[in-house]
């Protein structure tokens, strides 16, 4: 069976969607991701959709589902790299992805996750906690 690879980086899971997914593959990714979040106790999920030229209501719903399910499992999700034409089309279609955090690129997305959950990348809890405290001021 076909799967989209899920990479683990510290307490984060990274997914880069690089193929035009058929609906079943999208559902498989949703199931795989929720299973992995719970298996490894992930605190953050970053989904890179910069290679996607089309996000229709099905894929949009999958992204919203992943964000909601991960929240219930105590993990934050950030969707990064949405192409401007895709954003325009999604909103016109009637989906503004409420509840889904987004960032322009992977770097900004990682920073957002890091701020939200603390010591994801560096693994140094004290520094990350300090950073979070100072950025809150």
């Amino acid at each position, binding site marked *: 069976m076909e799967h989209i690879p899920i990479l683990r980086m510290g307490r984060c899971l990274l997914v880069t969607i690089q193929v035009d997914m058929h609906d079943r593959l999208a559902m498989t990714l949703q199931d795989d991701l929720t299973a992995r979040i719970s298996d490894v106790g992930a605190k953050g999920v970053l989904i890179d959709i910069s290679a996607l030229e*089309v996000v*229709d209501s099905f894929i949009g719903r999958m992204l919203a589902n992943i964000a909601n399910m991960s929240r219930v499992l105590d993990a934050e999700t950030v969707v990064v790299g949405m192409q*401007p*034409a895709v954003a325009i*089309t999604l909103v016109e279609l*009637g989906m503004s992805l409420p509840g889904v955090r987004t960032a322009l690129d992977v770097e900004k997305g990682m920073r957002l996750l890091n701020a939200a959950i603390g010591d994801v990348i560096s693994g140094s809890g004290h520094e990350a906690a300090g950073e979070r405290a100072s950025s809150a001021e």
Partner: protein
Amino acid sequence: MSVATGPDIVITRQMVRTWAVDAGFGLVDQTKIITAASELARNTVEYGGGGTLQIELLEDGRRRGLRLTFADQGPGIANVEQAMRDGYSTGSGLGLGLSGSRRLMNEFSITSELGRGTRVVATRWKP
């Protein structure tokens, strides 16, 4: 082309992209047309039990357009007006397929007969 299975929805997107690029549509318009095609193809597969897509390049002297015609011989839609409303769905979806794809295209018409099937014609003109 035949639109009968999940993978056919992906092929529909690829075919419509090729046509939209050839017709000279810009990136945003291409994306809108492909997304509308994806929604309508999914309706054809899920609710129509499979059907066909016809793609036409239109030229009326002044402007160019792309017309998509999805037709199925499925159960038909009992209340088209209701089906066109945002958020209305008899299936598991969000109910954005018909209403959303109408917003993404310039012209949109739907005819349906119970027990006979549904036909959706959607056109986008190049600005």
